[in-house]
């Protein structure tokens, strides 16, 4: 008996800012910066949006596609994020109430930089396979912050995705999953700090590439597959450059990677990044398609998934709610001042 995806839903806020707009404020050629990162725009949460609101939107989108799903059958909700609105008080309980899954269930928040959502997918897989409950809800969501003027400010964006994981009514089976984890301090945020810090170029070879490549090779070995066996490939996408390069290193083509590469249009949604990419793939996938997915979280680790789309995909209503493509294309551009206001980068008077 395999575990897999029962339904999925994604959410991207409609606000965007262009690299040119950010660069103009800091005396940098933002357009060149955007080209270097392969990011055309990044999403920005509205002033009334945060990880909890986006998680609820994504979870509701997943339930809307699969009317057979009774929220009361969801026995666990795990929300992975590095920008939970509360330091103490779970995002997951609010999501649970908002989708009417509470109270007979368990819930917790996860944090592992950009891979907390995929860690939640693995946890829910294990717990459904052990029959602790029928379905689990794994969410990856972030309203990531980049310090003003820092290179991260051009990519740190907002988005969320939710996957209902179970053993029955599968739209896609997760045939294999494997992780690769080490202590690598490439990116971090200390308690109480508003913005993260990073090791610059150290985030590349010893961090992202080492972990993604190692995890991918372990996954190939365990699944007994090669790149050409897959219709789609999706990797963690901190910018538009790294996932394309790592995909090529592993032997994947642009065609396999194109659908899931949302970072070019919405930036790096951190815990949501690989999961919104997977949502975009599932929006257009056909039964029998195979998907190769490897996430990455700084600190550092990679979670890999070997996924096969099943005939169950035809049983859910993928047209219920908005597709990832329609959300990516529903855009309102902000100037830097409005972006700074929305992201609370402007110091306001108390009271």
């Amino acid at each position, binding site marked *: 008996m395999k575990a897999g995806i029962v339904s999925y839903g994604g959410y991207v806020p*409609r606000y965007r800012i262009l690299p040119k707009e950010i660069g103009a404020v800091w005396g940098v050629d933002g357009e060149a910066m955007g080209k270097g990162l392969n990011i055309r725009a990044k999403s920005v949460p*509205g*002033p*009334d*949006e*945060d990880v*909890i*609101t986006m998680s*609820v*939107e994504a979870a*509701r989108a997943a339930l809307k596609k699969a009317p057979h799903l009774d929220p009361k059958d969801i026995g666990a909700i795990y929300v992975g994020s590095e920008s939970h*609105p*509360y330091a103490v008080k779970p995002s997951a309980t*609010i999501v649970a*109430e*908002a989708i*009417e899954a509470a109270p007979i269930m368990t819930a917790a928040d996860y944090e592992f930089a950009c891979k907390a959502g995929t860690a939640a997918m693995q946890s829910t897989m294990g717990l459904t396979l052990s029959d602790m409950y029928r379905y689990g809800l794994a969410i990856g969501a972030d309203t990531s912050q980049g310090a003003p003027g820092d290179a991260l400010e051009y990519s740190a964006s907002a988005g969320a995705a939710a996957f209902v994981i179970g053993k029955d009514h599968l739209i896609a089976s997760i045939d294999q999953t494997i992780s690769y984890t080490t202590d690598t301090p490439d990116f971090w945020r200390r308690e109480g700090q508003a913005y993260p810090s990073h090791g610059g170029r150290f985030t590349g070879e010893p961090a992202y590439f080492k972990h993604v490549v190692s995890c991918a090779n372990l996954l190939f070995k365990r699944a007994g597959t090669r790149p050409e066996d897959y219709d789609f490939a999706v990797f963690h996408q901190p910018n538009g450059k790294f996932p394309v390069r790592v995909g090529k290193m592993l032997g994947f083509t642009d065609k396999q990677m194109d659908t899931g590469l949302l970072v070019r249009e919405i930036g790096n949604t951190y815990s949501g990044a690989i999961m919104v990419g997977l949502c975009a793939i599932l929006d257009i996938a056909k039964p029998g398609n195979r998907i190769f997915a490897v996430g990455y979280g700084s600190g550092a680790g990679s979670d890999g998934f070997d996924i096969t789309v099943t005939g169950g995909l035809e049983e859910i209503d993928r047209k219920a709610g*908005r597709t990832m493509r*329609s959300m990516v294309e*529903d855009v*309102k551009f902000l100037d830097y001042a409005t972006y700074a*206001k*929305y992201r609370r980068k402007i110091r306001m008077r108390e009271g």
Partner: protein
Amino acid sequence: MAIPRFWREIPSRYNLVGSKCGNCGTLDFPPRLVCPRCGRRSMGKMERRKLAGRGTVVSYTIIHDAPKDFDMMKPYVLAIVEMEEGLRMTSQVIDVELGDIKIGMPVEVAFRKLGEEGEAGVIHYGYKFRPAR
């Protein structure tokens, strides 16, 4: 807002749970314990009823002078929305340009932050509406 007061309202604020009078069938939102039309004849007959979350803009106004919690969003749209079930409610309409909001516009429920008790306090969440897609 006191924490217990908001906490009691979570079902209606998160999931549009109203009430239906078991005597005359009238729907109310937020939910009532007694039907104002039937009085004591409704007692013990009030049922919880969840609204579907779809409606139409009946009227609207643009708020330029906003209360503190909404200061970041001004100018914004506040509308009276007639729900599919027939009752009306007042709410902010988000993700719409001020020039695009129209009487008769179909809207759907969204989940958003309604406010927060300062930097260290509780965050309140609940419904707003956005153009139906």
